[in-house]
């Protein structure tokens, strides 16, 4: 019996309750609040490296909507595949890309996280209510190799935790 005291403590019932509570909390947090992500690809360089680990925080948008600049996880297909992109356009805005520069409602968007820009060009896109415009931080890629564009609010799963 004395060998079990370091394991279960002097109050095994309390220990078991603590274990059950911690386990339940972990299930709730990692099942419903934080979605583990392993980033694959280079579209978010230099902000996030290929293979980086992170979490999508679903709770981030329980009390407010996504805002410009947020890096979000976008449900790509099914429950386990996500894009990770940055929001540059909000619902109702007009987004255009001219020679690598993003403009929103005809005003140049200041993007401190973008280091190098290839000469991307994209015709103006008018965002509907509930639509956001997302793009990765790596603009040195060829435009045809970079997935970006309009996304419906319902596909935004959460905000990256760090």
């Amino acid at each position, binding site marked *: 019996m004395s060998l079990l005291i370091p394991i279960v403590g002097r109050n095994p019932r309390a220990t078991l309750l603590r274990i059950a509570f911690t386990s339940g909390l972990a299930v709730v947090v990692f099942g419903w609040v934080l979605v583990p992500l392993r980033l*694959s690809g280079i579209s978010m360089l230099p902000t996030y490296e290929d293979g980086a680990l992170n979490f999508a925080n679903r709770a981030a948008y329980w009390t407010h909507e996504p805002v410009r600049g947020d890096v979000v996880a*976008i*449900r*790509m*297909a*099914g*429950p386990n*595949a996500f*894009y990770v*992109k940055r929001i540059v356009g909000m619902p109702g805005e007009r987004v255009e890309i001219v020679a690598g520069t993003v403009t929103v409602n005809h005003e140049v968007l200041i993007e401190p996280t973008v280091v190098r820009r290839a000469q991307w060009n*994209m015709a103006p*896109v008018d965002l509907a209510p509930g639509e956001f415009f*997302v793009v990765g931080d790596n603009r040195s890629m*060829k*435009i*045809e190799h970079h*997935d*970006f*564009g*309009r*996304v419906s609010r319902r*596909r935004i799963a959460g905000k990256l935790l760090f």
Partner: protein
Amino acid sequence: MSAIEESLTVPENDGELGRLARIAALRNLLAPDIAVSTGAPRPGAEVPPELVGRDAVLALAGRWVPPAGGVTIEFVDMQVTVDAGRSTAQVYCTARISSGPDDRPLVDARELTIGFARIDGSWLIASVRPEDTLVR
């Protein structure tokens, strides 16, 4: 659906015979007037946004060069609806595309609506439409 997976999955170091066998198997799964949407048009895309007809789809399949490590196609999260006359059906699913022999890292995933038609007693693919997540 498993027959479709088999006809689209390419093993590692696949040869010409295997490729021809898969195309032949795929032909038996497609309706003659199949319509395949490849998604929203993108700059620089080599595939047209819409393919109509079995021959057009098979021609594209014949031109496709898979990676040496092979490609695995899986359909998951399927929801099936069959019309009252049991002549058409819709399958809403997620297509997961993986590459590599063992770990098979996920390369791409798409939500699809696959339409089936019952022709001469067999269910054949009549339409394929992906749901675009990011649209320019």
